[in-house]
């Protein structure tokens, strides 16, 4: 579905954002791109979206190498809602649609209903709370029915309560559309809750440290106890220093398009890992 091969991005000032990134995302996957700030994960998403160009490497959708233009099937939800302040909610939602006014209005209303904002069509962005504005942004991305919806820390600016509501909303939408969701986040709990695969990035410039596949029977649960050992292993990966990361990377990089670490063995019922 989406394949990244040996992707390297260098900023104009010569600083390397990330290098030699390779992983593959299957159709309908929710893939977390997890890493500390500064590891280039947001830039990686921007390159996938086509908003920035990589120095070398390949991004391909459905086996087709992406050119320099932005892909048809791609939608993006940014960290901020990025609504057009001069448009009411319904026009913001239908911003990317090319249709008659009536159709646009109908589609906007249908999707607003889905994100829980029915009746807010005529509101202006300045009248919305942060969570509501982000719902509108989600609706705007969905209205074009993308196959791949790229999410760039979409909930990081929200309070914990709203964040949980929107995470659940995202899972509802995903259950209905089964679109592919690459999700950049720095929140381990969010990645563990939403994703079935987590690409852990590390270092400056960022590299793929591990690709963690979550056990199929532990998906989309807020019961983080049962994922304690996965969380612990991610913590361990993120604590790796540059030197040992490099050696690990050179071992796994060529085959890392698959999953280099699959944590699929049954988890002991009595997890005694303290110090989380």
């Amino acid at each position, binding site marked *: 579905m989406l394949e990244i091969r040996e992707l390297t991005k260098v900023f104009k000032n010569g600083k390397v954002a990330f290098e030699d990134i390779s992983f593959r995302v299957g159709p309908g996957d929710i893939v977390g791109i997890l890493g500390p700030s500064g590891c280039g994960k947001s830039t990686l998403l921007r390159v996938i*979206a*086509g*908003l920035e160009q990589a120095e070398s490497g390949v991004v391909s959708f459905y086996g087709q190498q992406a050119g320099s*233009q*932005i892909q*048809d099937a*791609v*939608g*993006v939800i*940014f960290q*901020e809602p*990025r609504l*057009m*302040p*001069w*448009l*009411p909610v319904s026009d913001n939602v239908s*911003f*990317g649609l090319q249709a008659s006014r009536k159709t646009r209005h109908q589609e906007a209303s249908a999707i607003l209903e889905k994100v*829980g*904002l*029915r*009746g*807010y*069509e*005529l*509101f*202006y*962005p*300045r*009248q919305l*709370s*942060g*969570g*509501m504005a*982000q*719902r509108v942004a989600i609706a*705007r991305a969905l209205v*074009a029915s993308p196959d791949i919806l790229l999410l760039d820390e979409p909930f990081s600016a929200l309070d914990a309560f*709203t964040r949980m*509501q*929107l995470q659940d909303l995202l899972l509802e939408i995903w259950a209905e559309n089964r679109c592919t969701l690459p999700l950049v986040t720095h929140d381990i709990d969010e990645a563990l809750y939403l994703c079935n695969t987590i690409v852990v990035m590390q270092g400056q410039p960022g590299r793929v440290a591990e690709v963690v596949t979550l056990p199929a029977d532990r998906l989309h649960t807020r019961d983080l106890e049962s994922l304690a050992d996965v969380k612990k292993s991610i913590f361990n990966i993120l604590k790796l220093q540059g030197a040992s990361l490099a050696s690990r990377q050179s071992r796994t990089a060529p085959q890392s398009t698959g999953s280099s670490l699959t944590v699929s063995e049954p988890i002991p019922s009595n997890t005694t890992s303290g110090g989380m």
Partner: protein
Amino acid sequence: MSVSPSARRLVQRVLVGIVIPVVVVVLWQILCQRGVFPSDLLPAPSAICQAFLAMGSNGTLWADVDATCVRLVLGFVFGALAGLVLGALVGFFETLEWLIDPMIQSVRSVPSLAWVPLFILWMGIGEGSKITLIAVGVFFPVYLATMNGIRYVDRKLLEVGQVFRFPRWKLIWRITIPSSLPAIFTGLRAGLGLGWMFVVAAELMGASQGLGYLLETGQNTYAPELIVGSIVLFAILGKVSDGILRVLERRLLHWHDSFGNRETGWPQTRGSLDTQAPGH
């Protein structure tokens, strides 16, 4: 019969706003009648009103007001159009900025009255030179505001359009232009203010009609009521013309944060707000 809250607030505002002018005029009238001010230097409000009512009834006042307004409107339209077009071009094309912005910026620092002799030489003392002078005054604030509004459009909003694969013209039409409108309106209002300054300068340099001409006549014929009356008329006309732009601005830019009047800004919706705000 019920009055809407916003209408009542407007009435309240107007009532509060005219308190000071009324007090000043009443004091002025009383002091003039007591002979505190010499009437040949500062005439009483009643004397000014009489003089202007007389001019109004024989029609000369309207001809003067009309002449001034026509000059201002024409100068404003030409100056604003030039400012909008050049500002937009320079805002969109960086090379053009390097090419013409330094020149425009240096011309901007020429004092406005320095143009007067040149324009008179070129166009005589007719309407052409006056309108050109006003247009020059209006041009610069509009040009600067338009250029900056377009230049500093939020890149993050443009990316939203890029993700939807908008072509360039559509990015401009649907994102750049609406988002630079607040800045452009600020420039237009500043330009209009300068236009009023320049219309006086233009009329003082030689006109046979207009409020500026009335000012000069007052000076030459020792008629202070003409001078003070013209000043008051300028104040009123300036306020009215700015009010027209402000109404237009409110219409077009009600979405903008600076008009954040949350109580009155909420549109009617079906259903109750509180139960429908899960993200709140």
